[in-house]
């Protein structure tokens, strides 16, 4: 589909010259070939998606374009001419801007100061502020240049990053997984901004693995798999299933029908849990109450940094409460208990951070199993029963289809998805009465994500109370019976997942909690676009 190098020189004058063209880009890291002969063509004013699973090589490719990584082979053409981008400064000079997935802003500085720091020539704040304000109005990115970053929501921070990139008048803007931290409403507004930019002739490279967004926004998509281009298509003409098939190279496994679950006794309750923020950048928890019944999955949605970390620490016992009654496991007050004591009451916990918290990369899988599963008869008289430990790790590996070199393989040698399957397996095999899971499929490939969600559903079906904290709304709608939203350290009521839509959840993410839809009123309180707009951070 892309012209071969020989043709392109003759072809180019006939057509509009491409804004950016990559030919045969290759980049190998010690353990993996991240890009292997990648071609990419982006026309002026085009919104072009680069899609692929985690580890498909999307981010490496973008870093090569932005001059942060030097390719081993291949060439890059900018507006028809060969260009060598040795650093982000070179890239910016050409007219390439990039908005990163993880923001690099100084929290204690103001917006204008942050932008001044990253702008060549170090302009005076006084000159910069009106330009920021102008861009902000033109593209619908309301931001106060004099506000300090630590007081801003993630969505606002992203606006700062976008404005920072726009100040350089880019002709190509790279957006790396921009929506992973945004509310649905904020996503819609971001899309408006991007469409406006594209209409003005700026090309946009949009990196994502969210297929719905790509189908909504992008005109063309380059699909990467294992570092290679496996297809170029018009995503609007594809179905999510066909895109997913191209991305993972196989049919997407479906869910087994879980046995009909009927909620039973209350197994986990949180009652009026409040905690002051630890440090200026932490989130205070304000009067959180929730309950999860046997056989039920409660999802907690919300934009990261709204108190999830603090709530999880209070649930797991890493942060203890003076008042024992704030957390109860199977009716037993546990708020004052340490993690090990809560495990004895039947709690299991899968933390968000796999490498270093949920598992230790340099230890073997067996040793990692011992991290939380010691009570499964794996120790005796204070001594580790190595035979039983190995058997437990093997059971975990086979039951959850963990692809690895066996129980003696280092945890760090596993892919993110396989390690997560192992960790979830380690917790689930302990048959916990209460299972708390943070970001179960964050950074996990599609196939493993299905397996992990299935494991959670099965655990609930077996009578456990499951609480899932996730930033992926789709995931929560897929598995949760009820969804609550955490915003600014407060928790919304739990909405039955079948009775709410994304808009209501999105509205709750802004801190305005709509009432729980009753059986009588079908879908009350549909938030108007204006209301959502006004309430969005």
């Amino acid at each position, binding site marked *: 589909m892309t012209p071969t190098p020989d043709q392109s020189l003759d072809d180019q004058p006939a057509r509009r010259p491409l804004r950016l063209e990559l030919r045969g880009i290759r980049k190998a890291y010690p353990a993996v070939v991240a890009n292997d002969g990648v071609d990419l063509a982006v026309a002026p004013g085009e919104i072009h998606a680069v899609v692929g699973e985690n580890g498909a090589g999307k*981010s490496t490719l973008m870093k090569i374009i932005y001059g942060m990584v030097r390719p081993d082979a291949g060439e890059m053409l900018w507006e028809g001419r060969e260009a060598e981008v040795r*650093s982000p400064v070179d890239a910016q000079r050409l007219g390439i801007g990039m908005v990163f997935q*993880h923001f*690099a802003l100084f929290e204690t500085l103001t917006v204008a100061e942050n932008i001044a720091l*990253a702008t060549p020539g170090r302009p005076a704040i006084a000159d910069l502020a009106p330009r920021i304000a102008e861009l902000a109005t033109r593209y619908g990115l309301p931001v106060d240049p004099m506000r300090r970053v630590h007081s801003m929501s993630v969505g606002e921070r992203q606006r700062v990053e976008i404005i920072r990139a726009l100040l350089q008048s880019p002709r190509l803007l790279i957006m790396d997984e921009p929506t992973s931290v945004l509310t649905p409403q904020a996503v819609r507004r971001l899309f408006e901004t991007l469409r406006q930019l594209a209409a003005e002739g700026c090309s946009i490279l949009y990196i994502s693995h969210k297929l719905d967004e790509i189908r909504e926004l992008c005109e063309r998509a380059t699909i990467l798999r294992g570092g290679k281009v496996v297809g170029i298509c018009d995503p609007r003409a594809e179905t999510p299933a066909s895109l997913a098939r191209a991305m993972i190279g196989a049919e997407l496994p479906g869910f087994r029908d879980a046995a009909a679950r009927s909620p039973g006794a209350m197994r986990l309750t949180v009652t009026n849990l409040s905690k002051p923020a630890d440090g200026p950048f932490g989130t205070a928890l304000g009067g959180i109450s929730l309950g999860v019944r046997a056989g039920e999955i409660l999802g907690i949605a919300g934009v990261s940094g709204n108190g999830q970390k603090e709530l999880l620490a209070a649930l797991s016992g*890493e942060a203890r409460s003076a008042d024992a009654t704030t957390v109860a496991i199977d009716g037993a007050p546990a708020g004052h208990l340490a*993690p*090990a004591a809560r495990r004895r009451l039947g709690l299991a916990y899968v933390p968000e951070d796999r490498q270093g*918290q949920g598992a230790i990369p340099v*230890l073997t899988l067996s040793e990692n199993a011992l991290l939380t599963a010691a009570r499964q008869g794996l120790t005796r008289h204070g001594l580790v029963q190595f035979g039983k430990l190995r058997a437990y790790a093997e059971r975990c590996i086979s039951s959850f289809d963990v692809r690895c070199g066996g129980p003696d393989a280092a945890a760090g040698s596993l892919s993110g998805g396989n390690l997560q399957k192992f960790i979830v397996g380690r917790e689930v095999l302990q048959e916990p009465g209460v299972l708390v899971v943070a970001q179960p499929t964050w950074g996990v490939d599609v196939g493993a994500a299905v397996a992990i969600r299935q494991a959670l559903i099965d655990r609930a079906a077996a009578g456990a109370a499951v609480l899932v904290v996730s930033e992926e709304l789709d995931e929560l709608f897929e598995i949760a019976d009820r969804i609550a939203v955490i915003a600014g350290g407060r928790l919304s009521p739990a909405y039955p997942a079948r009775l709410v839509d994304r808009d209501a959840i999105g509205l709750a993410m802004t801190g305005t909690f709509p009432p729980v839809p009753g059986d009588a009123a079908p879908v009350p309180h549909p938030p108007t676009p204006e209301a959502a707009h006004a309430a969005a951070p």
Partner: protein
Amino acid sequence: MPLRLERRPQPSTAMVYAAPLIAVGATVIVALVIFAAAGHAPLDALVMFVTGPVQDRYGVGEWLLKATPLILIAVGLTVGFRAGVWNVGAEGQLILGVIASGWLALKFGPGGSPLLLPAMIVAGGLAGAAWAAIPALLRTRFNANEILVSLMFNYVAQLWLSWLVFGMWRDPAGFNFPQSEPLAPAALYPIILEDTRLNIGLWIALAAVLAGWVLLSRSYIGFQLKVTGLSDAAARYAGFSTRRAVWLGMLAGGLTAGIAGVGEIAGPLGQIFPTASPGYGYAAIIVAFLGRLHPIGIVFSGLLLSLLYLSGDTAQMSLGLPSSITGLFQGMMLFFLLAADVLIFYRIRRRPAAAPAAAPVASATIAEAAP
């Protein structure tokens, strides 16, 4: 051409164990160069250096005798090192063992009770542990760095011992030399090899090796210590107490160092000097790392370092080199070991013409978004 270190995808397990041998090999090569520079036939000097001290039964006895405190202390320190608790105060803890057991020996020695020796061992161990408890307490209560505190307390202990030996413990019949009266026979370790000074301290050290092996390699507590050393977050998640790791690590090191102190005055010294230890508390740190923080490895590295101590004397007598060459070789061995360890986990790559540093913000992002 700028060089950089790049993380290896899969560090070699074999090299983890080969690294001490490589470090010893590299030290030998440097030793050969030093011998040659000093005007000796390098190989002959090396053979002399290594085998000189152990040519007779007495030499072998001395070799094991000096290895005893090194092994004993290193096993105790390893309990802490595995948990990331850096007790570098073993020297001071050893001296506290000397002070406590020395006091008992001077006071009750003439009585000749058979309980004296066990009491000295217990008191010495407890005193060392108590000395180590100070940095442990400061660390767990105020998060004070245990490296600095334990190191500083070495000097305090040393001055305390000097004050005692120069003062109230000075032997009235000792011609004013700073030394105590000779200890009574009841306060001395029994000899286990005739015609040598080798004593039951060796059995104590080997018992510590066995206990250390069970604790570190077989027990759940040992696993918890290891996890604590590797990752704070994982230890908190699993519910392993960091405080307990600090206490266990510090106390184990203090206990063994204190008992090693007893072994010095009840063994080869037979009386109390201000310099009760020729730096065993520091050398044991090298022994622990050279032995890969593993009790069995520590036996070998303890024997090696002990031989180095003896060879220093040989070097002085037979080769005309200063005995401080022992410290030189000790330091070099640790240096080469650490270098080898770096190369186990990283490899050196030449960087093609380096990209100029980007704006600070951008480079922060590079670090954050590494693949």
